C-alpha cells in the first residue's frame, strides 16, 4: 500500500486567493493511499522544502504530490528535495493548481472543487510511478561552430583556448563574415579590418581549431554530448594543402569582370578568386559558373601558371563526418533588399523607393564598401552611376524595419548607430558635402552610443530630420527625396546626389533548413529561438546547441561578441563533466507485444528508435523489434500514441496511469 504525501501550496496569495487550500488538503487527505496532506504558504521556500523532507522521513512516505504551480516552474526543485530526503526523485509529481486553476478562475467554490480533482488525478498517477534510475551519457569534448563571422570566430577561439577541439564550418571561401566588409566600427571608429583580421589569423593558426571554409552542414545526428555532423566540403578546385596563396592564378585569369559579392557587386573579381586580400584561408576558389574551363573545356590557364600545381579541375564535393559534443550556431544575417518580392511573400519591397532600380540608391553595406580603404573605390565615396562625388547625401533609417506592412515589425537595432557613423565617415571624406538623415526614432542604448549619435549632429554637422520618407524618384541625375519634418510639421524635399538606405537585418537565407537539420526552433522571421528570452538567452531548447550573434536576432558587434563568449562558456560547462546526467522520462518497448511495424520509428522526432533483433539460444532470428535509445529519446510520447499494438510506454505517462487519472475524475 502506498503512503502518499500531498503538499498544497498557497503560493503567497496566488493560489489561496481563489482556492480554499485547507479544504483541498483535508479532502485529498481522505483519499485511499494518501497518508498525509497539509498546506503551506510557500512550498518552494527553504522552510517549505524542509517541511517536505521532514515529513517524508517522519511519515515514511512512498510517493509525493506537490500541488502548486506548473511543473515547468518547480518540478526540478521539488524532485531535488525529495531526492535529498532519500526517495527516488521520479516518485514526486506536481499538481498544477495555479496556472491551470487559481489564475484562470474567479469563483472560489468551483476553483476549489477543480483543485481537488486535479490533485486527486495526480495522486492516482503517482501511485503507479516507477523508481527510475538517472541516465548517464558520455560527452565528446569537441565542439562544432557553424559560421565564421565575428560570432563564430569568437566562440571558436574561446572554446579552443580552453583546450577543447573546435570544428569551424564556414559557407563562404573565407571566414570574416559581415564584419570583414565594414569600413569602421561604432562607437570608436576603429577600422574593422584592423580588429578583425588578427582574429581571423588566430583561427587559422590555432592548434585546436579545424577550419572548413567553403563548406556546409549536410546532416546532424545524435544528441547532446554525442552529435555526428556530416559536413559537405564544396569543391574548391584548388588544393588547400598545395596552394601557397601567391595569387598568380588570379592575375592570369582571363575572366576579370565578375561582380564581387564581398564588395556588394561594386568591385570586380576574376573567376578564380579570394573574396578579399586578407582572406583566411588565403586559398582561391574557382567560381565554376563563370570559369571558361568549366563552361567550354578550354583555357586552363590557372593550372598552367600554378607553380605548386594546386589547381585541380577534377575536384569534387566531399562529405566528412565529425563527432562533436556541442554545437554553436552563429550563422549571422542577411540584409533586406527593397526590390520586388515574389508574390505571396511575407516580406514586401518598396515600390515607392523604385524597388531598388535607381542606381544611386544604395544600402548601408554598399556604403561601407565605398568608405572602406580596401574597397572598390579605395575609400572614396563615389556614386555608382557616374563615379562623381555626392555633395548632398540622404540617409534613410528604418527601411524594412519597424514596418509591419512590409512584413517586418522588429527594430534592426544597429541602423541608428551605423547611420550616425556613415554621416561621420561622409563628413570626414567630403568636406563640402552635406548629409541628411531621415529617422523615426534614434535608438542608441549602449555604452557611449548616444554620445556618438549626438556627435554626428553637433560636431559632424549631419542634419537629422525626424520623419519618414514617403517617396524617392530620379530627376535628371538627382534623386528627389520627399519627406517631412514632423518637429516643424512641414513637408521636406531634398534633391540628393546619393541615397543610403539603412535596410533591415534578416536571418540568413536558408536559416530555416539549417534549423530543421539541427532540430532547433525558429520564429516566423527564421531567427533562431533561445530557450528562455531572459534567463537562457544563448541556449536552444534542444540540449547541446547554443546560439551566438545575429542568427538569434539583430545584434551589434559588442553584443555578438558577448553572446559568442557566453555560448563558449556554456560549451565549456558542458565539457567540464565526463558524463552527462539526463532525465529518465523516456519510452520503453515491451518486446513481447512489438510486431516490428516501426510506425514509432517513422514518427520519432529525435531519431531514437532503432531496430533490434531477437534471437533464440541457437541464434535463429525470432523477430525484429523496436528499441528506444534512452540517450536520444526526448520523452515526447509520440511513439506511445502511434503504436498500434500498445507496446511502447513512456515512463510516468503510461496508458495505465492516464486511465487511472481519468477514472479519478
Amino acid at each position, binding site marked *: 500500500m502506498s503512503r502518499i504525501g500531498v503538499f498544497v501550496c498557497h503560493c503567497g496569495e496566488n493560489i489561496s486567493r481563489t482556492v480554499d487550500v485547507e479544504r483541498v488538503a483535508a479532502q485529498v487527505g481522505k483519499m485511499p493511499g494518501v497518508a498525509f496532506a497539509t498546506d503551506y504558504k510557500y512550498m518552494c521556500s527553504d522552510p517549505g522544502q524542509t517541511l517536505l523532507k521532514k515529513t517524508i522521513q517522519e511519515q515514511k512516505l512512498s510517493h509525493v504530490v506537490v500541488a502548486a504551480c506548473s511543473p515547468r516552474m518547480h518540478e526540478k526543485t521539488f524532485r531535488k528535495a525529495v531526492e535529498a530526503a532519500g526517495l527516488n526523485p521520479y516518485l514526486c509529481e506536481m499538481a498544477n493548481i495555479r496556472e491551470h486553476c487559481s489564475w484562470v478562475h474567479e469563483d472560489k467554490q468551483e476553483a476549489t472543487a477543480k483543485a481537488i480533482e486535479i490533485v486527486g488525478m495526480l495522486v492516482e498517477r503517482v501511485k503507479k510511478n516507477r523508481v527510475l534510475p538517472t541516465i548517464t551519457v558520455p560527452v565528446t569534448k569537441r565542439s562544432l561552430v557553424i559560421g565564421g563571422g565575428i560570432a563564430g570566430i569568437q566562440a571558436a577561439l574561446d572554446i579552443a583556448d580552453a583546450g577543447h577541439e573546435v570544428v569551424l564550418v564556414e559557407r563562404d571561401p573565407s571566414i570574416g563574415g559581415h564584419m570583414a566588409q565594414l569600413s569602421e566600427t561604432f562607437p570608436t571608429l576603429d577600422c574593422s579590418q584592423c580588429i578583425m583580421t588578427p582574429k581571423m589569423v588566430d583561427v587559422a593558426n590555432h592548434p585546436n581549431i579545424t577550419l572548413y571554409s567553403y563548406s556546409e552542414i549536410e546532416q546532424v545526428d545524435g544528441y547532446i554530448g554525442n552529435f555526428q555532423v556530416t559536413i559537405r566540403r564544396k569543391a574548391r578546385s584548388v588544393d588547400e594543402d598545395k596552394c601557397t596563396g601567391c595569387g598568380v592564378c588570379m592575375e592570369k585569369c582571363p575572366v576579370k569582370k565578375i561582380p564581387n559579392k564581398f564588395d556588394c557587386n561594386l568591385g570586380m573579381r576574376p573567376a578564380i578568386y579570394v573574396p578579399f586580400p586578407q582572406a583566411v584561408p588565403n586559398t582561391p576558389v574557382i567560381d565554376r559558373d563563370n570559369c571558361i574551363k568549366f563552361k567550354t573545356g578550354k583555357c586552363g590557364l590557372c593550372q598552367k601558371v600554378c607553380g605548386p600545381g594546386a589547381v585541380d579541375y577534377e575536384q569534387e564535393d566531399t562529405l566528412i563526418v565529425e563527432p562533436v559534443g556541442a554545437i554553436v550556431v552563429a550563422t549571422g544575417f542577411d540584409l533586406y533588399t527593397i526590390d520586388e518580392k515574389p508574390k505571396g511573400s511575407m516580406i514586401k519591397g518598396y515600390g515607392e523607393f523604385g524597388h531598388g532600380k535607381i542606381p544611386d540608391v544604395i544600402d548601408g553595406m554598399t556604403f561601407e564598401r565605398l568608405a572602406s580603404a580596401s574597397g572598390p573605390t579605395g575609400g572614396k565615396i563615389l556614386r555608382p552611376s557616374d563615379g562623381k562625388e555626392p555633395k548632398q547625401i540622404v540617409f534613410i533609417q528604418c527601411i524594412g524595419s519597424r514596418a509591419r506592412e512590409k512584413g517586418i515589425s522588429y527594430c534592426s537595432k544597429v541602423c541608428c548607430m551605423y547611420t550616425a557613423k556613415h554621416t561621420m565617415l561622409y563628413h570626414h571624406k567630403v568636406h563640402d558635402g*552635406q548629409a541628411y538623415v531621415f529617422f523615426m526614432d534614434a535608438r542608441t542604448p549602449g555604452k557611449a552610443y548616444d554620445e556618438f549619435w549626438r556627435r554626428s*549632429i553637433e560636431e559632424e554637422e549631419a542634419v537629422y*530630420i525626424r520623419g519618414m520618407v514617403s517617396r524617392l524618384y530620379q530627376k535628371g541625375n538627382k534623386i528627389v527625396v520627399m519627406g517631412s*519634418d514632423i518637429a516643424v510639421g512641414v*513637408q*521636406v524635399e531634398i534633391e540628393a546626389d546619393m541615397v543610403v538606405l539603412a535596410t533591415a537585418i534578416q536571418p540568413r537565407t536558408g536559416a530555416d533548413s539549417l534549423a530543421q537539420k539541427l532540430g532547433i526552433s525558429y520564429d516566423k522571421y527564421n531567427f533562431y529561438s533561445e530557450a528562455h528570452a531572459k534567463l537562457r538567452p544563448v541556449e536552444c531548447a534542444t540540449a547541446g546547441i547554443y546560439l551566438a550573434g545575429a542568427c538569434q536576432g539583430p545584434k551589434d558587434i559588442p553584443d555578438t561578441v558577448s553572446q559568442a563568449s557566453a555560448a563558449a562558456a556554456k560549451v565549456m560547462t558542458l565539457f567540464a563533466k565526463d558524463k552527462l546526467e539526463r532525465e529518465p522520462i523516456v519510452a520503453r518497448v515491451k518486446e513481447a507485444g512489438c510486431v516490428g511495424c516501426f510506425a514509432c520509428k517513422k514518427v520519432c522526432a529525435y531519431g531514437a528508435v532503432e531496430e533490434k533483433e531477437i534471437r533464440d539460444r541457437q541464434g535463429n532470428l525470432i523477430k525484429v523489434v523496436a528499441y528506444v535509445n534512452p540517450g536520444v529519446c526526448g520523452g515526447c510520447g509520440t511513439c506511445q500514441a502511434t503504436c498500434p499494438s500498445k507496446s511502447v510506454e513512456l515512463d510516468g505517462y503510461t496508458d495505465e496511469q492516464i486511465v487511472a487519472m481519468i477514472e479519478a475524475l
Partner: protein
Amino acid sequence: MIISQSTMDVDFVRKVEALSGTSVRRCFQCGKCSAGCPMATFMEHPPNRVVRLLQLGQWQRILAGRSIWYCASCETCSTRCPNKVHLASIMDALRKLSWDAEGPSKESYVQLANKLFLQNIRTYGRQYEMRLAAVFNVKSGQFLKDLMLGPKLISKGKLKMFHSKNKNMPEIEKIFTRIEEMRKKGEAL
C-alpha cells in the same frame, strides 16, 4: 519646404549662435521648452520649433512670425533645458538680428513700434507719445486703435498734446551716430 545647402542659411545660424552664446545643434527636440513656456499658446511656432527651424537654417520662417516677440524672456526654457540650450538668449539674438534682416515680421508691429520709438528719441531727445501713437496707427493701418484711451490719458496728464525737446540734442545725436558707425564696422548690431 525644399532643403539643400543653399536653403539652409548656416551663416545666419552661426550669427545666432555667436550672439546667444549657445549651440543650436545641441537641441534634440524633446519639447520641454514648449511644455513649460507660458506664452507658447500664443505663438505659431512654439519654442522647440523655433530651434528646429534654426537647425534647418529656415530663419525667415521664424522672423515672419510673432513667436520671438511673444517671448517674455522669463527663461523657464533655458532653466529647464536638458541640453543647456539657452533658448531665451536665442530669442533675444533673433530679435536683434531681425532689425536688419530682410522680410521681417509682418505679423507683429513690434519692429515698427521700436523703430518709431527710436526715431522719436532721435528727433526730440525724449519720447513724444502722441506722435508715436499717431504715426504707429497710420503706418500700421489701424487708424482707430486704442483711440478711446486718449482722453483718459490726456486728462490724467499721461499724454502730452505738444512735445518738449531735450536741451542736449547734439549729445543725443552723437550717441546715435556713434552706434551707427559701430554698426557699419560690425562692432555692434
